[in-house]
């Protein structure tokens, strides 16, 4: 299967390792992902006022270029991009008058015909490849690893663009089970990590990291898995800073789900880019014997 891929700005810089590991596992699973041409930043947050069409331009332009490439599907790795692209896609389908306005405004682009489906990579793995297929290809099960799945906001809310149930999602837990890990449930797995407050209000985000992960570590979780580059930064880097604020808190390593799939499929850990993380994720893998010391 060949899939068109929309990276978004962060996947090309602070989250290069998420992209690298995703491409590696696509290759190992026998499929191809191709970066689309002429994509632009999606704007990160979906337009939230009814009269604001301006902020739909950026995501729409990328959707037009998917159609220009002759494709009707595009996959993303970034949770926020996925959410923004999906919301714009919905808006122009629900209000054809707005689509007409946007198409007329972007007079140097082709008109958007509304044929594109936006997929998150996790949806693709679950629905098109199947976790049971991935399970059969696991050479190196994550035995002995107790991992807490963390979803954050953008994968699950608002409901119209969610890839799983907004209150009790199971997609990451199901994936972890397929990879041989033990899943530690956590009631705060769907709570916001603090998002962009990390720029001007670091302590607020460190408080969030403490609240979200402390419960899981008390239940024996020794790591967490997530999907969003900003959540990774907030729970990993800002989480480490929370150790200074809370005596009862010890930071656990964070993994992107793509990195864990790569390790479980027996790929070389170098495709995971673990050196980009603040808390070294290789230590736990070595300790559990999942990768060689």
């Amino acid at each position, binding site marked *: 299967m060949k899939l068109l891929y929309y990276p978004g700005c962060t996947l090309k810089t602070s989250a290069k390792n998420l992209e690298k590991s995703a491409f590696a596992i696509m290759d190992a699973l026998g499929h191809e992902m191709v970066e689309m041409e002429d994509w632009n930043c999606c*704007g990160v947050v979906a337009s939230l006022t009814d009269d604001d069409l301006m902020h739909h331009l950026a995501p729409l332009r990328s959707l037009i270029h998917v159609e220009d490439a002759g494709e009707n599907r595009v996959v993303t790795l970034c949770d926020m991009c996925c959410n923004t692209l999906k919301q714009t896609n919905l808006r122009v389908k629900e209000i054809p008058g707005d689509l007409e306005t946007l198409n007329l405004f972007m007079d140097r682009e082709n008109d958007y015909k509304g044929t594109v489906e936006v997929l998150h990579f996790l949806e693709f793995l679950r629905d098109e490849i199947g976790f049971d297929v991935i399970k059969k290809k696991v050479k190196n099960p994550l035995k002995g690893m107790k991992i807490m799945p963390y979803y954050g906001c953008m994968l699950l809310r608002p409901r119209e663009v969610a890839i799983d149930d907004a209150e009790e999602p199971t997609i990451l837990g199901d994936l972890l089970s397929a990879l041989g890990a033990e899943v530690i449930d956590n009631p705060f797995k769907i709570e916001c990590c603090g998002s962009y407050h990390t720029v001007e209000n670091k302590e607020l985000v460190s408080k969030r990291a403490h609240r979200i992960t402390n419960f899981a570590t008390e239940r024996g979780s020794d790591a967490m898995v997530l999907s969003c580059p900003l959540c990774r930064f907030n729970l990993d880097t800002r989480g480490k800073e929370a150790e200074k604020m809370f005596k009862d808190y010890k930071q656990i390593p964070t993994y992107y789900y793509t990195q864990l799939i790569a390790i479980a499929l027996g790929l070389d850990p170098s495709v995971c880019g673990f050196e980009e993380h603040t808390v070294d994720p290789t230590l736990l893998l070595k300790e559990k014997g999942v990768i060689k010391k």
Partner: protein
Amino acid sequence: MESNKEIDAIKFKEGGLVAEVEELSGENLFACYQCGTCSAGCPFIDDMDLGPDEAIRYVILDRKEVLNSNTIWMCASCYTCAERCPRDLNITKIMEALRQIVLRKKIDHTKVVKISKKEKETIPQLAFVSLFRKNIG
């Protein structure tokens, strides 16, 4: 709540604040029956001046000091409140409407951000883009 001269200068007719919020958000604020579910689920409630349900009440009662609260800026648009509201109100959009009332008067919430070079290099871009999208008109 801190007072801000520029925000205090924004004038509304009686009932004007709720009318403007309703127009921008497309939501009927009078549907709120103050159950508190939104505040119960809000991740930032501990640091907010007013809970989301209180903010809605302030708007209905023409108490425009709600625009001075830190509530509307603490909100990270995580949609938890909107998902859980039993009246199906999209509180995320209501908060955005309140922010837009201030931002559209050219009153930005973020000044020039003083952060170290190291931070600039490690913080994911999407944090900066969303910060500027949310806090600057």
